[in-house]
């Protein structure tokens, strides 16, 4: 499953526009992870004084959907958010535009990526440049009076720490969902924002995730799980065991740190390390799977 970067433009000017934009962002989470979102901007309609101000924003959505599927998803979100109450055929409450998708260029009758008017509209480029500095040049090339018509709605609405947390939480959640959906034990993603690693662990009263291995022929293996027999912090030994490594003797694989004492976790014999089920530095509870070994 490949993850794609989709830039979404969000606009609203009916009802409570800010709230509607926020609701759209929440709704988009169903189709991926919002890893970046801009602050809200108010756009004064230039010259059209009979229209209410628009609230605009931009978001970077990490998704596995293909462009057409994503477009369809955006339409679904628009429909789901409904229309102004009482207006059966009236304008939509929220407008969602697919502005860009990876570095793709598509020119088809009802799908054009990047969005054809992207570089002309201040209310698209200003929020977009906020979340991706790559668009800054295009924004700065716009006429001054166009740029002045777009103002941040509330300074610091979603900035700094909160945005960072949203970003990281969304990314981690997305990876966790990916894990839960399949057989993988651990997922590692390297991106310009940093490295993210999510591993399957067994915690709390939620359904017990049995750590399984990605293997081409699981039946040929005799999998044994090495579990924690105390509560503490899991740390891999040095040199760290690696997945796929063959152990030809009993070896210390890791240790659990608790109350100032390091208790070794041994392989208890030979075998092949199929999976490392926990993460260095993670708290582990009694019975938590740590390693999956194929005793062969």
């Amino acid at each position, binding site marked *: 499953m490949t993850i794609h970067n989709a830039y979404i433009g969000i606009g609203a000017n009916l009802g409570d526009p800010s709230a509607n934009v926020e609701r759209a962002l929440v709704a988009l989470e169903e189709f991926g992870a919002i890893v970046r979102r801009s602050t809200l901007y108010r756009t004064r309609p230039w010259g059209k004084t009979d229209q209410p101000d628009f609230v605009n924003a931009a978001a970077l959505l990490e998704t596995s959907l293909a462009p057409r599927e994503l477009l369809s998803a955006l339409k679904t979100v628009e429909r789901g958010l409904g229309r102004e109450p009482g207006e059966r055929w009236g304008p939509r409450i929220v407008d969602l535009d697919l502005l860009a998708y990876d570095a793709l260029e598509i020119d088809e009758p009802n799908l054009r990526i990047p969005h054809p008017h992207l570089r002309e509209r201040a209310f698209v480029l200003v929020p977009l440049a906020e979340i991706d500095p790559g668009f800054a040049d295009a924004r700065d090339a716009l006429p001054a009076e166009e740029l002045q018509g777009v103002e941040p709605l509330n300074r610091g609405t979603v900035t700094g720490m909160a945005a960072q947390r949203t970003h990281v939480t969304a990314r981690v959640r997305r990876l966790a969902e990916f894990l839960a959906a399949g057989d993988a034990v651990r997922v590692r993603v390297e991106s310009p924002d940093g490295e993210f690693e999510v591993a399957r662990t067994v*915690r*709390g*009263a939620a359904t*017990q995730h049995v750590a399984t291995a990605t293997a081409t022929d699981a039946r040929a293996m005799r999998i044994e799980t090495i579990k924690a027999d*105390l*509560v*503490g*912090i899991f740390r891999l030994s040095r040199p760290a065991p690696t997945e796929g490594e063959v152990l030809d003797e009993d070896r210390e694989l890791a240790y659990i740190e*608790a*109350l100032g004492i390091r208790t070794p976790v041994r392989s208890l014999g030979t075998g092949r390390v199929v999976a490392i089920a926990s993460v260095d530095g993670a*708290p582990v*509870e*009694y*019975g*938590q799977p740590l390693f999956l070994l194929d005793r062969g």
Partner: protein
Amino acid sequence: MRTVAVFSEPDRQSLHVRQADESFCVGPGPVPRSYLNIPNIISTALITRCDAVHPGYGFLAENARFAEICADHGLTFIGPRPSVIAAMGDKATAKRVMNEAGVATIPGTDILASVDDAARAAAEMGYPVLLKATAGGGGKGMRSVERREDLERAFAGATAEAEASFKDGRLYMEKLIAHPRHVEVQVLADEFGGTVHLGERDCSVQKPSHQKLIEESPAPNLSAHARASLHAMAIRACEHVGYTNAGTLEFLAAGDDVYFMEMNTRIQVEHPVTEMAYGIDLVKEQIRVAAGEALGYVQGDLVPRGHAIECRINAEDPRNNFAPQAGTVTNVVFPGGPGIRVDTYLYPGASVPPYYDSLLAKTIAYGDTRDAAIARMERALRETVVEGVGTTIELCLAVLSSREFRTGHYDIGLIPAMFAPTV
């Protein structure tokens, strides 16, 4: 206030685990490896950056060493100081301390060194005698001995049970008082010398194993003199040892005579009875005291109202010597309405593991009068549905409808008499 629950593997789906903000498995089913696993419990508290540990009742609740270890690791133990737990939690030592404080105690011994020691002591005070675990509670590690011939077996049985339940198999002996009532006084003290009592509870309705089944407050048909005496002795005892946080002093009452039996330096199972009668949240007060707050009220501010009764619903078969029942609770319906409180971990599909105390739920009924409380309790018990394991509900109803209970003239022989073999 955020919470971290610790649980054993069989308790993974238990209600407290689901309701806590975080939870950690601390070991397998058997108690010594999980709920008595001090390293894992402390480790959990440290990893989750807890400020305090509430030990509940049973397990490590009266373990002075555990309280010390908590303090060593910067964790506030919600309970008295370790030295006070050691002094009063050790039943044999407590008696000595109470004597010093001028509180009447039951004739008895210090820790028994051996079964021979026990035989000597019993011969001196005269049978029948009672062997009790010094670290005990909940009726565990207790055996009554009617005759010399039964002593060895009783000694061995009590020692083993105490060892398993409290990691401490030491026993002491007391004279077995005939037809006593078990009356206990709830106390609460802050760290500034503020000490109050919250009345007494009658806990004479006990299974043959001495574990309580029904508790009520106030104690019925207790003379004003005996009641005042109990309350005064409880306060005196607390002040003598510098007691802090919540605790209960247990007495045996025979007629107008009251004897100190033991002190439980923790919150007790039946604390809701007192909470209903006094309108005070005792566990909240425990936390407040542990956090360094003053009580904020004095004895005169505490005015009990009405009458409260608790029935313990255990997974036991009374007809089969109270054999514990393990299994899955397939259906459960609990009563509601005014004056009814239910504390439980049950929900449909909950499993009752075989490793622990058989308590499933506590039903507490409150009324303006004792009769009103009894009527409400009877209605509540009849509305209660627990399917999948046998329970003590029918037995509780039988007790509530007995003449002895209704008139309020009963002692700890009530249930044993109901089960006396009719030959």
